[in-house]
């Protein structure tokens, strides 16, 4: 699925300082029944965001008008649990283009990269600084610079670099996905398959 190119993102951020946020919270299983990739943003963090009668839970950060922006800042071990790519779709579809955490679960991170959400892993200290900056001033902007691989808290100037492999970086910068790449090496794949025993 094609997605928007990612270059430099400057935005306010939404703080969610909980640890081990799992994919069942990001998008509960009962919302996985679509056969199209549409409308998942509405159910992002569904059970934390809404009461059983669908009224918004005021205490949850997405319902707090003070916070907003295209960056979600999560706690440690963000995205653990199931392989559902719907979790990454929901994050993207809601309007986030970047998730920041001091530690990501593998599959979630991989899924994000495949759907155009940039996962930025920072040190625990930097993660604390971001939370502090947002809580001091919800209008505080964060700059995520993919070409330079840096993340900066503009208010304080604090900066850290982050890692991303050069292949995925190219993809994100151009809005390409892996299928485009694989399609271009079909011949090589077929001759590989011909040599297999099973």
């Amino acid at each position, binding site marked *: 699925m094609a997605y928007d190119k990612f270059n430099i993102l400057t935005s306010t951020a939404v703080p969610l300082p909980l640890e081990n946020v*799992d994919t069942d919270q990001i998008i509960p299983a009962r919302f996985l029944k679509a056969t*199209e990739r549409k409308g998942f943003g509405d159910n992002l963090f569904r059970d934390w965001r809404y009461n*059983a009668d669908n009224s918004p839970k005021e205490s949850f950060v997405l319902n707090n008008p003070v916070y907003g922006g295209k960056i979600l800042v999560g706690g440690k071990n963000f995205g653990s649990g199931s392989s559902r790519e719907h979790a990454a779709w929901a994050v993207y579809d809601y309007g986030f283009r970047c998730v920041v955490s001091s530690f990501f*679960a*593998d599959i979630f991170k991989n*899924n994000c990269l495949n759907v155009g959400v940039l996962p930025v892993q920072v040190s625990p200290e930097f993660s604390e600084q971001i939370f502090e900056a947002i809580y001091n001033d919800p209008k505080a902007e964060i700059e995520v610079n993919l070409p330079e691989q840096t993340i900066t808290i503009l208010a304080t100037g604090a900066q850290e670099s982050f890692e991303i492999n050069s*292949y*995925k970086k190219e993809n994100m910068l151009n809005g390409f996905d892996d299928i485009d790449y694989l399609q271009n090496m079909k011949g090589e*794949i077929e001759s590989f*398959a011909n040599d297999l025993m099973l």
Partner: protein
Amino acid sequence: MSKTLFDKVWDSHVVRKIEGGPDVFFIDRHFIHEVTSPVAFLGLKNRGLKVLYPERTFATADHNTPTINQHLPVEDPLSANQLKALEENSKAHGISHWGLGHKKNGIVHVVGPENGITFPGATIVCGDSHTSTHGAFGAIAFGIGTSEVEMVLSTQCIMQPKPKKMRINVNGQLGKGVTPKDVALYIISQLTTSGATGYFVEYAGDVFENMTMEGRMTVCNLSIEMGARGGMIAPDETTFAYLKDKPLSLKGEAWDEAVAYWKTLKTEEGAAFDKEFNFNASDIEPMITYGTNPGMGIGITNNIPDADAVEGGVATYKKSLDYMGYSESDAMIGKKVDYVFLGSCTNGRIEDFRAFASIVKGRKKADHITAWLVPGSHEVEDKIKEEGILDIITEAGFTLRQPGCSACLAMNDDKIPAGKYAVSTSNRNFEGRQGPGSRTMLASPLVAAAAAVTGVVTDPRTLL
């Protein structure tokens, strides 16, 4: 350089290495189900692509299928729509499809091995994180996202950097009433839910060597719960005996040739791991979880740890106990139970039903308990009947449901009501996993059976 089991299987499936990027990784077997495949097929359609090797993909319906009255049309229109999409997509692309009502239908990770689709040295993926189950056969098996499902359908490859390697050794003798599930929950409690993130695990040592294939599947299944991409166990005579003569296993000379190759799939002396752990079998008790992730597990006779005794954030820990309605230092023994769920790709195989029956035999279901006993496949269901297990559980006041994922992720009607407590043999105790507001304690089939007949959390060793 000496190679590990994982190296051997991984390296033999790399089609191309990308400098500074992932490996282009060839996939031997691909399982699909109704929930994570429709959007992938839609992607193929939008790009005008075909399925490259339909004979390498297998479809089964399991995630949102009902577990009663499977002969009737599926009521929930969204689920019915996904089931129909799976059927139509499979048909359009020439993929074998074991839909609802098919005699081979069941949970993807149960029917794969049962039919010999899984084999040693294979690379296996599915849009479901518990694909790690198949690692029990010495395969590299892991869960993938829907974009990757689309990649495998169209090119039989995905793009993955090679994970780091971890070995977990468990040696010694397991005590009475200690099952493979307990071994896995114990390891996760020691490593935490992120302790193996970025790694692929090899399980080694006598405990795994002496384990049945069913037990090995349970252990490998839960690898993902400590963050690992997957786990694997070197294939041996137990593996070959299990696979021999399965419907889709190789036959005759081809089988002999394959076995000769499979025997080479072992970690060589001196091969390096990035991380290694050693545990003693005698330290493991029947386990139970008390919190909202699978790492929050303790020996069943222990008390819930204090917040300052656990690693990680105190706030997150307290939120978790609050959700469960528990307090620090509570004993788990005697905790109230409302529901018992026996099933899932973790513990929905015949051995799990035998274990359950061994405790409920001659006893009665506690009156207030609702028990959902859900076989992992029709084949398991048939064996339950053949072996007389159905008579035992019926006598004890239980009924048997039809195969599917059921309350493991509660996408169908099998939802634990809000606030209720369930002892479940499945794999995740996340908030709301088994239904909004549900409270899950993960445990073995023996602990589930003990709870089912006593109505509270009970040490199964007292009933054996």
